[in-house]
Every structure is written in C-alpha cells, then in structure tokens.
C-alpha cells in the first residue's frame, strides 16, 4: 500500500528502500499467473527453469502437478525432484510438498506449483502459499503458478461470473510481494481447443469441465481479470521504482479508507469492495467493527466477525474493534483520527422499528459525515441490518427473570393503586405504573422495561379504567390516554434499561481493570522468574478458565516453567508450534495459520530485546475465535507478564553474573592462600638451610640448632599440608578406603592427643572420656586423623590456650567433641567451615591453615557412617566445639571379634 511518501525532499523513500533491501535478503518470488487451468503455466515455468538450470543455477523441483500432460512430464525429466511427503489422512495417503526437505536442501531456486493448494491437515501450514513464504524467508527463490480465480479479492467476482465457488484462495499481498509476475496467456478459443485435444484434462474430466467452467464467456471474463491484475501489478512496480529513485510522481494519494463491518453477510462484500477501492486508489484501509457496549458476546456473531476480519487482513487491511453505542459518532471519531477520506459500509434493510424511531446508520452518517465520502454496498438476500442502532434483544435465553421481575413490579403497582384509590380519590394512576416500568428497566434492563410497559398497559386498563375488570375502554379519551401511556412507558423504560445496560458494561470494564490491577500488584511482588510465571498462569486460569502454560527458552530448548493445571505435558507437534511462536515472534497453534491442529494457541511474550517466553493457552473451541473482550484482556495480561518476566530475567542474569564474579574472587583468594601455604614453609626451610651453609660457622651452637629445628618443623608442616591435599583428593575421587573394624575410641583419642602434643608442645590438651564408651565401627587410623585435624585446628585458631577432648555415650551413639577457646565461629559460618578451602578469615584475605582440615574430617566421618557438626560459642561466649557422632557397635559382634 502506498501511503506515506515524501516526494518533496527529493530523497529516496526510506520505506521503499527498506522493502527493496528485505527483498534482496529474502528469496525472490516469481508467480506465473494464468486465467484458467491449462493455459500452460506449469509448462512455461518449467521451460524457464530448464534454461536457468542449463546456465548452472541450482534448480530443484519441489512439486509439480503434470495432470498427466505428456509435454509437461517430459520437461520434468533431468531435474532434481524432491520426494513428496506422504500423509495419512482418513485412510487415504496424500502426497504433499515436503517443506522441511526443501528447507534442508536449500537450493537457489525451487519450483512449487499450485500456489493456492490447501495442505493436508496436520501440516505445519494450512496453505501452500504459507509454505512458500517460509521458503522465501529462508532465502530460497521460488517459482510458482496461480490461476487468477484463486486471488482472494477476486474470489467473489469469479464466483459471480462463473458460478463456481472458489474455496482455495491466496491473499493479494502474496502476489504483491512477488518480485516478478508473469502472465501466461492464450486466447479462450485456443484453450478450449487444447481442452478438446485432451491436453488439459483426461477426456472424462475435460467434458465436464467444458460444460461447467470452460465456456467462452467465462474464459474471456477470467482472462480480462488476469490481464488487468497483471497490468495493475506492473503499475505497482513502476510506482515502487519511482519511489525508490525519488522520482516525483502521482503516487502521493493520501486516501485512506474505512470499512465498517458487522456480524452479517453484507460485511464480507463491504470488505471486498473496500479492498478493490483501496487497490485502485492505492490507499491504505482499515476494517472496523463497533461492538455494542454492554452486550454479551454472542458466539455466532464473534465467529462471523472473526471471519470478516480474517478476510480483511488477507486483503491487506488493518483491523480494529471499538466499543460504543452511538455508531455514527464512533465511526466519525475514528475517521477523523485516522484521516479517513472514504467510508465503505453496507446498507441493510431498515426494519419497521428503525423507520419508526430514526434514520438508518448510512443516513445518519451521510448526515454527519461532512467531507468524507460514503460508499454504500447494497445488501443481498438474506442480508440483515449490519448494526441496528436501537436493538431489542428478544432472545428467549434469560428471559424468565425479567418476565417475573416485570410482572411482579406491575403487580405491586396494581396493589399500590388499589390501596390509594381506596384511601383517596386519584384522577390518574399512570405515574404509579410508570414507576414500575422504570423500576423494571433500571434493575433488569431494556427487555424487562418493555415487558413491564405492556403489562402495565393491560393492568391499568383492567383494574382502573372503567368499566373495571374488563379490557374494554368506555371513553375514547381514556383509550387515547392509555396509548400515550404505553408509548411513554416503552420509551422511558427503554431509556432506563439502556442506562442500566451501560452501567453493567462499565462495571464489567471496572472489574476487568480491577483484576488487571490486582494482577499487576501480584506481579510486582513476584521476584523470581518462576514466581512471575506461576502468578501469570494462575491469574490467566482464573480469568479464562482454560489450561494455561508458559515456556521459557533454556539453552536451545523451550521448557515449561509454569502451567495451570500444573501437570501439563506437550507432544512434539505442540512443542513445534510453541517454538514457532518464539522464533517467528507471532502466534502459532490452534486458531492461527501455523499448526492449527494442536491443542494450544501460543503467543510470544515480547520484551525490548525480543521474545523472551511463550504463553500457551487452550482456546474455547477450535473454530471459535477468541472474543474481542478476551483478546483485550489476554493482550493486557501478556504485556504485563512480559514486562515482569523481563525484569525477573534481567535480575536473574545480574545475580548470576555477581555470583560468577564472587566465585572468581574466592578462587583467586584460594589460589593465593594455597600458594602462600606451600611457599612459607619452603621459604623457611630454604632460608634456614642456605643460612646454615653460608653463615653456619659464624653462628653459635644454639643458633644452628634453632635453624635446624625450624627446618624439621617446617618440613613436618609441609608434609601435613601435602597429606591433607592428598586425602582430600582421595575423598573427592571416591578412592578412600575405609576399614569397618571395631575401634576402641579411647585408644584413638589417646593416639591423636599424643601426636598433637608432639606437633604443638605448648598447647595443653585435656581429655575427659566416659568410662562406658562403646566401640565404634570404622577405621582407627582415619579416626585418629580426624581428631588430630581437630586439635590442629584448635591450635591454629586459639593458639596455646588449650583444647578439651570430650567423649560420652548418648543412646547407642558415641559422641566425641573437641572444644577450643579461640574467637569462635560466626553462626552463619557454622556449616560453611566444612566446605573445602573455606577458612575463618583474616582481614587481609590470608588465613591460617589450609581450609582442608574440616572438610576432610567431614568426608572421613561420613564415610564411617557418622556425623560431624560445629557449635559456637562453646565456652564463656567464646570458642568453638566440633561434635562427632558415631553409631556404637553391637556388643554381640564385639564378643565375636575383639578390636584390632
């Protein structure tokens, strides 16, 4: 559609250049258009393809229907032909074009015949032209053939000309996107001649075809259509070219069309007519439907509207839904906002009611339109009014309550009237009945008001107009008054009803807003990705009552992250639809053009950086589109969810980045301290050794002894460190051998304490063991190592202030603990100190110890079936206590095999 153009500044139109650029990246489409089957489209297409192939172009035949024509079949020889995809459908095997094979093969040019073909159910796209579009998007050039009758905007013209209803249609924009359109043309006589010669169809089909379709009149008309359409297309190309080259020209038409549609048959004609007008004017156009405010969505109407809108979209229109009751005002407001120059609408048969109370919509529009041109499309049988201005919904559904309410209020009025006439002399009781009518209308709507009006009319007559208790009216003036009363009652009652209807609508809108507001508050409280998605799923389920699920890409795969009900499973086809929605950033699945057979419809959740998730929901039913109201709510919810989800995703990424940075810092600190731990003893040993060699003769005996001692001590320290590292790697690798012997805990404690006294002579160690300690099952050597590590730790953190080893029996378990009086462990670190390389730190990041001792202890104790935990503070608000709990061994086994 040529709409915005800036020829005045002499620069190429950016839109046109952009479109040209897109065309360069995408594959190029060449369409061979013919007026009817048999004109030789496939033949000329193959002829051209053969020429290209001889020039060395990578041409592949995706699909060609030869219809048994020998000449055509001969042309296919020598081409690479893609195998068809066999589809089982209702027991029949259908050979379909294999889109995936074509995409995988990715030739430079692919020939795909019969653009208007409808694919077998279960295919990815319902229509072949959609397959072709995917090929083009993948950068593959496509040649295809099309009979002019299959063009969407011409479908009804063709069916009127030829009497054949065209079911397979191709949207006009597909032809508009084509880089080249080639008209394959022969005269009608020639075609009929070919038909008789059996060059088009096999004889039996040919005979039927001649009778029904291939009449000279039909063919001439179709040929004219094809010629004209192709000529238009050439025009378009010319205009495009002019725009690209910034050549001044007559394209600056700023016409804009508005097609007003409703749930009726005339609307489809309105849409087609508007499309034709728009094309000839080179104008953009919009189809609008104005929904009566406060009316319950009628499923049948919704289907009709969706069909009409679908047609309009295929014909290149924007579509729009508005709500309101004053149609002319709404239409004109929109027209002014969108700079509409022409309005197309259907004329309906005006009903009796309308004639009574006012002008029809077209009349009203013409009256108020001003400068806007109005086109009226006449109705055809059995067209109904496109949108009654003032509608009485006498749908029997739900009428019961209204009837009861109306009759009850009238009965009340009768009662009040009787009572009043008994007390005082009232000249006219009509006001009482009017009150009943207003009451019914105000509370139960227009229908109740009308029922109450007639009931009042009868009751008033029956009870209060003489002769009483008959429907006869004696005085003519009484009859006149009664009729006036009826008119007034109906009018005022209806007005009251409309007020009530509108209030209902407002309340409903407010409820929607409230629910949206609640939801956004719920979302703002949700911090994590899962929180957001679960909130969204639960909310959508409560609003729509359908199954809902959310998928988020994790790596290359889409994964269900939230669903309501929570046990959703997706099959491969459904998942493909979800992936499609995510990758192409467009709806897919049920109710869309892509994979419509799956159970769910998928919508992408789009943030600034593109689609971030997919929402799947189960539509009400396969053929019923989503109502406008639901659509609005859905869009609003999805938009909000996308924003919240994007925020949550970004937060998650930030946290991950921070954690990674933190990890890196920890690793750096770890490496630094590991190298420090290895280097310090080495430095002492090397320093002392070289000092002794170089300067030993200048030292006193005591100094020499001191250096030698330091060498010994540092060697021991280094060896402990290396042993710890080895133990750790053994535990890590699962290579640790743990004996399961009976172990006397007292012996082990004794051994560990002696080792510790040798290593740290200045550290006082007190031992307190219960006399009745049972044996434990385990490895004496390793248990001693554990206790020694704990004493080593106590020494590191509390220096020479001492340590206490305590042992007691608790139930069947043996509980051993090592307590120091050092600075203790922060509550947050009580568990972390058992992690590998974690150490109670010093502010410079360097810490005493290796950070391995406790994690080795835990590894060993757990291998023996025990537990080890830390407690702090332990003594007088200081210190730490490490508590080991090991299961005691059975006394019976003890007797059988004494401890080793």
């Amino acid at each position, binding site marked *: 559609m040529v709409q915005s153009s800036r020829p005045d500044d002499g620069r190429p139109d950016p839109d046109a250049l952009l479109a040209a650029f897109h065309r360069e990246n995408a594959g190029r489409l060449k369409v061979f258009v013919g007026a009817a089957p048999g004109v030789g489209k496939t033949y000329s297409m193959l002829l051209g393809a053969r020429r290209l192939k001889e020039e060395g172009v990578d041409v592949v035949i995706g699909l060609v229907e030869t219809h048994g024509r020998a000449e055509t079949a001969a042309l296919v020889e020598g081409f690479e032909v893609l195998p068809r995809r066999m589809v089982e459908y209702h027991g029949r095997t259908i050979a379909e074009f294999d889109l995936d094979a074509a995409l995988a093969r990715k030739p430079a040019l692919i020939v795909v015949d019969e653009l208007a073909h409808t694919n077998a159910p279960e295919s990815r796209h319902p229509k072949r032209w959609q397959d072709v579009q995917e090929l083009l998007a993948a950068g593959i050039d496509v040649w295809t053939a099309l009979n002019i009758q299959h063009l969407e905007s011409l479908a009804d013209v063709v069916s009127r000309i030829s009497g054949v209803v065209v079911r397979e249609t191709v949207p006009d924009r597909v032809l508009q996107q084509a880089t080249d359109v080639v008209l394959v043309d022969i005269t009608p006589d020639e075609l009929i001649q070919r038909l008789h010669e059996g060059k088009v169809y096999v004889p039996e089909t040919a005979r039927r075809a001649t009778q029904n379709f291939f009449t000279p009149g039909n063919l001439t008309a179709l040929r004219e259509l094809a010629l004209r359409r192709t000529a238009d297309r050439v025009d378009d190309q010319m205009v495009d070219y002019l725009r690209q080259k910034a050549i001044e020209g007559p394209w600056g038409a700023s016409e804009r069309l508005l097609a007003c549609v409703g749930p009726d048959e005339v609307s489809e004609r309105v849409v087609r007519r508007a499309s034709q007008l728009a094309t000839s004017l080179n104008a953009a156009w919009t189809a609008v439907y104005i929904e009566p405010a406060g009316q319950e969505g009628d499923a049948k109407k919704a289907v009709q509207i969706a069909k009409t809108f679908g047609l309009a979209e295929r014909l290149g229109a924007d579509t729009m839904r508005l709500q309101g009751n004053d149609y002319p005002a709404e239409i004109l407001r929109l027209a002014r906002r969108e700079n509409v120059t022409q309005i197309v609408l259907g004329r309906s048969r005006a009903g009796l009611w309308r004639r009574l109370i006012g002008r029809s919509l077209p009349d009203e529009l013409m009256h108020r339109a001003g400068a806007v041109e109005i086109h009226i499309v006449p109705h055809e049988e059995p067209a109904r009014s496109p949108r009654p201005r003032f509608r009485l919904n006498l749908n029997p559904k739900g009428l019961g309550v209204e009837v009861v309410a109306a009759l009850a209020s009238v009965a009340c009025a009768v009662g009040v009237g009787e009572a009043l006439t008994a007390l005082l002399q009232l000249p006219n009781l009509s006001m009482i009945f009017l009150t009943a009518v207003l009451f019914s209308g105000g509370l139960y709507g227009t229908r109740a008001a009308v029922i109450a009006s007639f009931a009042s009319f009868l009751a008033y007559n029956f009870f209060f107009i003489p002769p009483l208790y008959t429907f006869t009216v004696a005085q003519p003036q009484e009859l006149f008054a009664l009729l006036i009363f009826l008119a007034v009652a109906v009018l005022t009652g209806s007005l009251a009803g409309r007020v009530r209807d509108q209030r209902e609508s407002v309340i409903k809108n407010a409820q929607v807003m409230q629910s949206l507001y609640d939801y956004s508050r719920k979302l703002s409280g949700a911090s994590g990705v899962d929180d957001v998605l679960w909130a969204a799923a639960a909310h959508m389920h409560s609003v729509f009552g359908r199954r809902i699920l959310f998928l988020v890409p994790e790596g290359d795969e889409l994964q269900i992250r939230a669903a309501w009900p929570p046990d959703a499973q997706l099959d491969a086809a459904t998942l493909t639809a979800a992936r499609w929605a995510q990758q192409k950033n467009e709806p897919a699945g049920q109710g869309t053009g892509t994979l419509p057979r799956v159970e769910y419809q998928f919508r992408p959740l789009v943030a600034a950086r593109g689609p971030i998730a997919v929402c799947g929901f189960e539509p009400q039913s396969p053929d019923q589109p989503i109502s406008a109201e639901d659509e609005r709510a859905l869009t609003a919810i999805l938009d909000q969810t996308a924003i919240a989800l994007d925020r949550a995703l970004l937060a998650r990424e930030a946290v991950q980045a921070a954690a990674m940075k933190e990890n890196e810092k920890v690793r750096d600190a770890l490496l630094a301290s590991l190298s420090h731990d290895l280097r310090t003893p*080495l430095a002492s040993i090397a*320093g002392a050794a070289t000092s002794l060699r*170089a300067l030993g003769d200048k030292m006193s005996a005591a*100094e020499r002894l001191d250096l030698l001692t330091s060498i010994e001590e540092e060697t021991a320290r280094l060896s402990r460190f290396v042993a710890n590292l080895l133990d750790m790697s053994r535990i890590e690798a699962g290579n640790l051998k743990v004996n399961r012997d009976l172990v006397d805990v007292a012996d082990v404690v004794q051994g560990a304490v002696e080792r510790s006294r040798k290593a740290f002579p200045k550290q006082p160690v007190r031992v307190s063991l219960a006399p009745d300690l049972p044996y434990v099952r385990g490895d004496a050597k390793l248990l001693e190592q554990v206790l020694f590590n704990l004493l080593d730790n106590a020494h590191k953190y509390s220096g020479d202030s001492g340590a206490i080893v305590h042992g007691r029996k608790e139930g069947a378990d043996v509980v051993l603990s090592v307590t120091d009086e050092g600075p203790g462990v922060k509550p947050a670190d009580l568990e972390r100190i058992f992690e590998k390389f974690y150490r109670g730190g010093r502010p*410079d990041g360097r810490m005493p110890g290796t950070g391995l001792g406790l994690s080795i202890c835990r590894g060993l104790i757990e291998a023996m079936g025990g537990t080890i935990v830390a407690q702090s503070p332990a003594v007088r608000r200081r210190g730490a206590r490490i508590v080991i709990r090991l299961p005691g061994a059975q006394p019976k086994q003890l007797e059988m095999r004494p401890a080793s």
Partner: protein
Amino acid sequence: MKGVRVLVVDDEPQIQRFLTVALAAAGYEVLTAETGARALRLAATGAPDLIVLDLGLPDRDGKEVLSEIRKFSQTPVIILSARDREAEKIEALDLGADDYVEKPFGIGELTARLRAALRHAASEAQQPPRIEIEGVAMDFDKRLVTRDGVPIKLTPKEYDLLAILFRNAGRVVTHRQILSAVWGRAHTEDTQYLRVFIGQLRAKIERDPTSPRIVTTEPGVGYRAAEA
C-alpha cells in the same frame, strides 16, 4: 658491615626466626616487625639502614607501608614477594622499592641484594666516574665504553641505556624506569622498544650475547646489571 641495621618486616614467625639468626650471623644488626604499623614506627624511630619488607602483612598492604615509608625516608627497601605476583612487584618497585627477592630464596641471594642496595644508597651522593662490570668499563666523564680496554661504539640511546643499568649495578631496574629515563615519560609502555635495544646492546657488550652475564633479564619486571 658492622653497625648496619636491618629492619625485617614479615608476619611469618618461621621466616623471622631464620632471618634474625642468619642476618645476625652475617654481621647485621636486626630489628623485626610483624605488622605494618610496627614497621612504620620502627622505620621512623629505629633508624634502619635497610628494610626487608614482606608484601603480605596482616594489618595492611605492604605496598601501602612502602609508600608511607617513602614519604619520610629514602632508606633502601628490599621486597619479599612470590614469583607469581609480577604486577605486585613492579608496582612496589615503581613505588620506590630498591629491589626484590622471590620466596623461597637463599640467604646468599638476599645478602647480595642488601649489599647492592647499600652500595647504591652510599654512592647516590657522589656518582663514581667509572664503573666496570665483567670486563666492560664505563667512563662517564669521557662517555666511553670499553671491553678489556678496547672501545665499544654505542649509539647515544644505547649509551644512556647502559648508563642507567650500570649506575644501578646489582639492582633491578623496571621497564618503566628505563623507558622514562631514556625515552621519556611518553614511552613508558613501549617495552618492545626496550627489548630491541637491549638485544643490540648485548650484541655489543656481552661475550656471548645468547647467555648474557652483564645485563640479565628479570622476566616481566625489568633488567639488572651484574654486581660491579
């Protein structure tokens, strides 16, 4: 060496222990400090002639201690550092440390550094007019370089380069120090220049340029001329 007072700053008791014994045996008077704060106090009040400073201290960063010391004293400072901490070493040298020793080290290496630093500190006031290293002599008054008495022809840049290394004989000179002294402050990052010139210089002065003895490389840090 009598009367030379060395302040040893290290928080590891085992390092302190052997340094105290060894340096005393080598004839130094030894002061010790375990923390940065104590090191600063002793540097100000203990009148040390030399400071041996470990960069990893419990209370504060060794480099910080160094720059504090440099605010009031030009006492030579020898850094104790790990081999894998190049950046730290260079930073310390640029902050005014005189040299460094990598842990683990032999006592001979440390005392050699101490001697070079002391000598340099002593000669700072009066530049010797002639320095000879491994048979290569540099006469600053005559701007003449000879090997075994035979004059060597050097370009002005090569001469300046050799001069800065010879004047700091026995001490490491960082890339940055050389570059800014010879090529000017704008070129302190152009270490590839330096590599080329050092190669040319070695070809002229070394007996075997493939295993240099006069100008040795301190990988990643700088260059060092052998002790005179």
